[in-house]
């Protein structure tokens, strides 16, 4: 062999078929097939096609990365287990998603066995960069099938690929498919049914010190254990090149190997400072050659996308179209969902009324109707908003527009330290933080995503509006300031306050808790595609289903706890009132029977008043009422009394509950925010010293509190689900409520100092 002085041939030594056969999958276990591929390669569409509706979504332990699995039936009657991995550019991870992909494919992911086969999906219309992952996979020494997706589109665009040549060059089956139309899927299933041998060892030329270093690491690798079924060369390269992001791979090898990796790195840094570039440069040289050989026809450069992009990312038209589209999305989440949500509310109430008579009056009936059914209602009302938002998001994502929107908004969002992708989740949060927080899933950077999740609840959501409406209606005089009305101005200021708080918190988080190395904001601008309805609908169903399953259970449990706190202990004063109520109701029935309409309606009015009084007494003396009194010293400096304390506590079920709680506390039954009597009651409510209990200053302080405080159990539950830990929701509750307290304190005490109280 004639070897240039600085270059030497390196043969990777994969485990080889003999070694793989040492650990055959147990008969009882199905073959595990991992689906890998770059972002936008059509991986998820293929996964949906192969599994149909039999899918399961979970989280990988300890991270926010989703684990999507499903079964795929084969012609032989057997089935394989499919695992849809997150989109990835490289096996040398740069994000938590890519860490999971690497760990799964290398068999060091805790809850997932080493896949028996990797199904690599490549978008035939832009093979070049996607072959990078392919090159890395081939080196790994595990069986691979390549699905050459969108072959139909590629041919339509004038591009043709020689799949046979590609297959021979890669040493793996290459199957042209179209995940959208389903062509080639049968061949793909059959290929998965066969025993696929691992690809033949790849030859790579490495400069001498690097070759020697890799060999030294290979020698320290144990002959058995988690990584033994992989090519030693690949494992050594992975250990050498994986720096920073995480340590799950390095922890999978024994101490001597770890030490060797450190020694080799230090030596290489001294001898060839550029050694890290060797892998990308080498792979891309190989890719260029492969593409040259396998491409039969090249596609013309100016295509449909260019014509569309000239409009959609135009200097003036681009932002205009984006704003219009966002207006439609926002209006839809806000308005379209409302009738459905009202219908659900009505349905839930009807269900309660329907079931109530079947249960004995008393605690059981109350638990079922006011606790459980109301709790289920609280969960279900979010579903329309989530479904509508995700309908739009998946349409935009699958068509390729989402990336253009992020491209347009990036400069603006950078002011807050975020990227263009954060815009839609934050905008949606003005309707409701629940779908907004769920939409942060389109943000690929972990720190940006967490920051967006944590500031989303500051956007004034629709549940705050009834609270604002009640307090503004009761305490803000309807005057005009210049050409603006004062109530309108106050409402606008509340929205601005929320945005300012979000900006401030994002800025602070980026400098403290979520500080870190500057990520690379490189984003692919995929070609435009007609979205597949099937995929879009599956996404919508998954999102809504996951919310109900994962966040819904927490919301239901908290609803029942809140019901208990507001209903117990039963008060002794209630008994005589209930006796009186029965008497009055009897009287009303008698009067009605005697035909004296006036007397009957008077009695009925008295009965309603008594009912309201019973509800008021029960709530005031319940655990919730006691808690309201307990926290009074803490909220008194903000201008709030214990009755508002009860309302603050019960609004944890949902912010708008504050209004009905105040109505109950003031014996008004279930008056709403437009009720004149409730506004009057609040205006004229007295404190124990005989003075006015509430002032306009208190109202402002209370509204500021509602803008900033995290009083929504559903938000907490959904943050728990989206971050896969209790750490961030707890941090959020503490941070937001501390901020709310401080701001309200400043408003109330500052106002009093200025003589406004």
């Amino acid at each position, binding site marked *: 062999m004639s070897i240039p002085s600085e270059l030497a041939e390196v043969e990777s030594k994969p485990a080889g078929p003999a070694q793989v056969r040492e650990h055959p999958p147990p008969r009882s276990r199905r073959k595990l097939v991992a689906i890998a591929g770059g972002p936008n390669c059509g991986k998820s569409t293929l996964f949906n096609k192969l599994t149909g509706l039999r899918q399961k979504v979970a989280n990988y332990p300890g991270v926010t990365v989703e684990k999507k699995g499903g079964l795929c039936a084969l012609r032989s009657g057997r089935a394989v287990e499919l695992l849809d991995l997150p989109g990835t550019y490289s096996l040398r991870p740069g994000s938590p998603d890519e860490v999971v992909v690497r760990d799964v494919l290398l068999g060091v992911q805790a809850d997932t066995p080493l896949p028996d086969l990797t199904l690599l999906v490549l978008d035939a219309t832009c093979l070049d960069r996607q072959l990078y992952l392919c090159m890395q996979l081939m080196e790994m020494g595990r069986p691979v099938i390549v699905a050459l997706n969108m072959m139909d589109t590629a041919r339509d665009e004038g591009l043709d690929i020689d799949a046979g040549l590609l297959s021979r060059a890669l040493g793996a089956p290459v199957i042209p498919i179209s995940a959208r139309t389903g062509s080639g899927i049968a061949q793909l299933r059959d290929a998965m049914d066969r025993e696929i041998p691992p690809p033949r060892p790849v030859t790579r030329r490495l400069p001498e010190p690097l070759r020697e270093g890799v060999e030294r690491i290979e020698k320290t690798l144990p002959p058995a254990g988690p990584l033994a079924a992989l090519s030693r060369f690949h494992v050594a390269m992975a250990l050498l090149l994986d720096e920073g992001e995480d340590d799950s791979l390095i922890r999978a090898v024994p101490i001597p190997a770890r030490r060797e990796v450190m020694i080799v790195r230090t030596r290489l840094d001294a001898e060839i400072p550029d050694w890290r570039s060797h892998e990308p440069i080498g792979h891309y040289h190989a890719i260029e050659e492969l593409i040259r050989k396998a491409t039969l026809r090249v596609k013309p450069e100016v295509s449909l996308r260019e014509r569309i992009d000239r409009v959609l990312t135009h*200097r003036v038209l681009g932002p205009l179209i984006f704003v219009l589209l966002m207006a439609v999305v926002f209006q839809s989440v806000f308005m379209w969902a409302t009738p459905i949500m009202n219908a659900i509310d009505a349905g839930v109430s009807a269900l309660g009324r329907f079931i109530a008579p079947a249960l004995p009056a008393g605690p059981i009936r109350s638990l079922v109707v006011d606790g459980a059914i109301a709790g289920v209602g609280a969960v279900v009302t979010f579903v329309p908003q989530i479904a509508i938002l995700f309908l739009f998001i998946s349409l935009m994502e699958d068509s390729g527009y989402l990336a253009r929107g992020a491209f347009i908004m*990036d*400069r603006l969002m950078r002011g807050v330290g975020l990227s263009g992708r954060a815009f839609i989740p934050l905008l949606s949060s003005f309707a409701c933080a629940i779908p907004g927080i769920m939409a942060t899933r389109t943000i690929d950077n972990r720190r940006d995503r967490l920051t967006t999740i944590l500031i989303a609840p500051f956007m004034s959501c629709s549940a705050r509006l009834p609270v604002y409406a009640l307090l503004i209606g009761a305490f803000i005089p309807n005057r005009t300031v210049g050409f603006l009305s004062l109530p309108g101005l106050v409402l606008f200021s509340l929205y601005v306050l929320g945005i300012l708080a979000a900006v401030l918190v994002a800025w602070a988080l980026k400098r403290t808790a979520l500080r870190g190395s500057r990520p690379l904001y490189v984003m692919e601008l995929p070609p435009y595609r007609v979205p597949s309805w099937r995929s879009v609908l599956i996404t919508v169903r998954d999102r809504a289903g996951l919310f109900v399953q994962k966040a819904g259970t927490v919301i239901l449990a908290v609803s029942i706890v809140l019901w208990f706190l507001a209903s117990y202990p039963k008060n002794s004063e209630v008994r005589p009132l209930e006796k009186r109520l029965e008497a009055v109701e009897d009287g009303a029935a008698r009067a009605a029977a005697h035909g004296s309409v006036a007397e009957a309606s008077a009695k009925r009015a008295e009965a309603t008043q008594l009912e309201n009084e019973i509800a008021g007494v029960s709530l005031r003396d319940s655990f919730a009422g006691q808690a309201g009194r307990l926290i009074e010293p803490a909220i008194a400096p903000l201008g709030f009394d214990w009755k508002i304390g009860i309302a603050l506590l019960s609004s944890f079920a949902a912010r708008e509950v504050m209004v009905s709680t105040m109505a109950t506390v003031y014996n008004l039954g279930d008056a709403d925010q437009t009720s004149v009597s409730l506004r009057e009651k609040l205006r004229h409510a007295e404190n124990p010293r005989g003075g006015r209990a509430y002032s306009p200053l208190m109202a402002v302080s209370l509204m500021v509190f509602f803008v900033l405080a995290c009083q929504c159990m559903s938000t907490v539950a959904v943050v728990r689900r989206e971050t896969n830990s209790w750490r961030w929701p707890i941090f959020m509750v503490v941070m937001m409520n501390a901020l709310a307290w401080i701001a309200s304190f400043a408003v109330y005490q500052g106002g009093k100092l200025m003589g406004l109280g």
Partner: protein
Amino acid sequence: MTPPRARADRRTRKLGELEAGSRAIVRRVSGEPGLRRRLMELGFVPGTPIKLVRRAPMGDPIELRLRGTHFSIRTSEADRIDVDPF
């Protein structure tokens, strides 16, 4: 175009300084090792032809065409990449 001007155009510059619609060849990627490797893995290896397709409405980020794919990249990041215009 006059020859001196053409010469000036051929000088190595930062990717972020290219005009919309112009083409260049990647010459060098600089910066911290992790980010540098990442950019190279994405296809920014020396010798690769590249086109700055357009700038976003607010001037930043920029859209690039590289190896058959389009990317959005911030100018601050693009400036780690030295290119030779042609």
